[in-house]
C-alpha cells in the first residue's frame, strides 16, 4: 500500500450557534495515500468544505487529529499553520481569486515571496508553473485580460509553485463552462499522474468526481462510502 499522506482520526468539528451546538463533522476517519486523487461529494452542509479546510490547515478541529506527512497540524498555532500552508499545501478555489492589479506571473509568485528564494529562482519556479498549466505566453497578462479557464489555470499554477505535497480544490470547476471545466480536470489529472501531486477535491459535479481516482460521499458529517 502507498505511503499515507493525510491521516484524519476521530475528527469532529462543532460550531456553537447560541445555545445550540452544530456538529459539522462527526468522529470522522480518513486516510489519503500519497499521489491519490480523491473527490469528496455530498449535499450542501454535509461538511465537505469543512473537512477540506481542516486538511488544508485553514481551520482547527474541535476534537480528533489531522496529520499530514506525519505532522500533527491540528496542534499548530495560527503562525505555525501559516508557515505550514506556505510550503505544504496548495489551494484552488471556485472563483480563482487572483489579485486584479498583478500580472499572472506576479500572482503565481505570491507564495514564493514568503520564501528565501532569490528573484531569479522565483522567476524560474514561476516559469515552470506557467509551463505546467500551459500559460507561458500569458505571463504578463492581468486577470481581467484572461478567460475564466485561464484564470483558473493561473490559480492552479499559484497553488503549484511552491511544490506542495497536496492540492486541495474547492469546486475548482464550479464557475466554468463544460469544455473549460474538462480542460481544468484534465490539467488536475495530469498534475496527479505526471507530477505525482496528491489531490483532494470537493465537488458537486459527478463528471468532475469521475475524473478522480476515487470518490467519497459525506452526509451529515459522516463518510457514507
Amino acid at each position, binding site marked *: 500500500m502507498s505511503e499515507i499522506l493525510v491521516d484524519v482520526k476521530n475528527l469532529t468539528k462543532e460550531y456553537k450557534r447560541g445555545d445550540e451546538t452544530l456538529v459539522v463533522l462527526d468522529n470522522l476517519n480518513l486516510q489519503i495515500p500519497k499521489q491519490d486523487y480523491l473527490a469528496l461529494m455530498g449535499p450542501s452542509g454535509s461538511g465537505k*468544505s469543512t473537512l477540506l*479546510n481542516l486538511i*488544508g490547515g*485553514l*481551520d482547527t478541529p474541535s476534537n480528533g487529529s489531522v496529520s499530514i506527512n506525519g505532522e500533527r497540524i491540528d496542534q499548530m498555532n*495560527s*503562525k505555525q499553520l*501559516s*508557515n*505550514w*500552508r*506556505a*510550503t505544504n499545501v496548495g*489551494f484552488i*478555489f*471556485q*472563483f480563482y*481569486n487572483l*489579485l*486584479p*492589479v*498583478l500580472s499572472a506571473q*506576479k500572482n503565481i*509568485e*505570491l*507564495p514564493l*515571496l*514568503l520564501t528565501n528564494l532569490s528573484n531569479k529562482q522565483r522567476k524560474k519556479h514561476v516559469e515552470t508553473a506557467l509551463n505546467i498549466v500551459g500559460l507561458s505566453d500569458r505571463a504578463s497578462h492581468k486577470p481581467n485580460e484572461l478567460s475564466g479557464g485561464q484564470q483558473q489555470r493561473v490559480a492552479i499554477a*499559484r497553488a503549484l509553485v*511552491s511544490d506542495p505535497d497536496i492540492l486541495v480544490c*474547492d469546486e475548482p470547476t464550479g464557475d466554468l463552462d463544460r469544455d473549460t471545466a474538462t480542460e481544468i480536470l484534465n490539467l488536475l489529472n495530469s498534475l496527479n499522474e505526471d507530477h505525482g501531486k496528491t489531490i483532494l477535491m470537493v465537488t458537486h459535479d459527478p463528471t468532475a468526481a469521475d475524473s478522480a481516482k476515487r470518490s467519497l460521499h459525506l452526509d451529515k458529517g459522516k463518510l457514507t462510502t
Partner: protein
Amino acid sequence: MYWVLVKAGVFRKKIRSLLTTLSVIVAFFLYGLLHSADPLFTGAAGEINAERMIMMPKHDMMFGRLPQSHINYLESIDSVTKVAWIDMLSMDINSMTENIPIFAISNDYFEVMDRFKASDEAKNAFFSNRTGALLGKAAADIKGWKVGDLVSIPTYSVKNDGSNVWEFYIEGIYTTSPAADELGIMVRHEYVEEARVANKGTVSMILFNLDDPAKADQISNSIDDNFKNSAYATFTGNEITLSQKMLADIGDIKLIITSIISAVFFTLLLVTANTMSQSVRERTSDLAILKSLGYRDMQIFISILLESNFIILIGAIVGLGFTLITVPLIDQASGGLTGGVIVFDSYQVTKGILIGVLMASLAGILPAYQAYKLKVVDALAKGLL
C-alpha cells in the same frame, strides 16, 4: 514582499486612491503654507530677538503716544544702559504702499536697534543733515529712489509752515531682517519734533538696552507698574513679546490657524480611515487568499498599515513639496519682503512628515486589525472564494 501587497491594494481602485492622495496633498499644502507663516505668530521673524527692550503705549500700540518724560524715567534706571526712541509720522494707512512710512529716530537708534544696518558713511551723512533720511532697501527698490534724491512725502502731520508734505534728502540706505522692516524711511527725530505742529513732546515707542537681559521681566514689570494708573500706561517687553502682544490685539491668529489645520487633518483622517476600511472590506477575498497561501495575520496587518502610510505619505511629501516650491515664489512675488517672515524649512517638513506617519497609522490601524482578524473560513463561508 510588502511592496507587492501594498501595490496590489493601492492600485486596485486607482481613482479612489488618486482622489484620497489628492485630498492629502491639498491638506498638507495648506498645512505647509499656514505653518510657513509661523514666525509671524511667534514674533520671532528674521532677527527679531528677546534682547531688545521696547516700551509702547499699553492701550493703543499702533497709534498711541508716550510722553518724552518716560525717556527720562528709563534713563534713571540703573540697569538701563542705552535709550533710543522712534516716532511714526501719521499717515493715511491706505496710501502707505504709495507713500512709505516715515520713522523719526533718535540719535542712538542704531546702537539700540542693532539689527538695522547702515554704512558709517551713510549714518554720518544722515546725522549731519537735519532733513536727511535713510531709506529702507526694500522701499528704495520699490520707489526707485536713490541716495542724493530729494523726496516729498505727504502725511497727516502738519508742519509749522502749514504744509503736510515733508521733504527729505536721502543720505543712505539701511537694511534689516525681516526685509518687510525695510519698507520705510528713517528721518531725524530732532527735526520732526521741531517742525511739526501736533504731538510735540511725545513719541511712538521707546527702545532700550539692559546691562543684563535676565532682568528683562523684572524691569518690564516694574516699569509698567509705575505707569499703570497714568494716562500714559505702558506695555514694556522685548521685541518678541511686543510682536506677540500686537498680534494678540488683532486676535489669536495662531489659535485660529491651528484650529483650521486641526479640522482639516481630522476630516482627512476620517476620510482616509473610511477609504481604507472600505478598501479592506472589498478585498476580503484577496486577503483570505493571501492567508491561505501562508501569509501570516501580522504580515497582512503590516501590509495594510504600509498601504495607509503609502497613500498619506505620498500625499504629504507632494503637498509639502509644493509648499517648498511655493514659499520662495511668494517671497519672489513680494520682492523679498516675506524673507524671514514666511519660512518653510526642514523642521516644518520633518514635522509634517511625522504628522503624516501618525495620521496614516491612525487611519490604517482599524482596517489593519480587521484584516488581521479575518479568517479564511469566514470568507469561504460567505462564498467569496
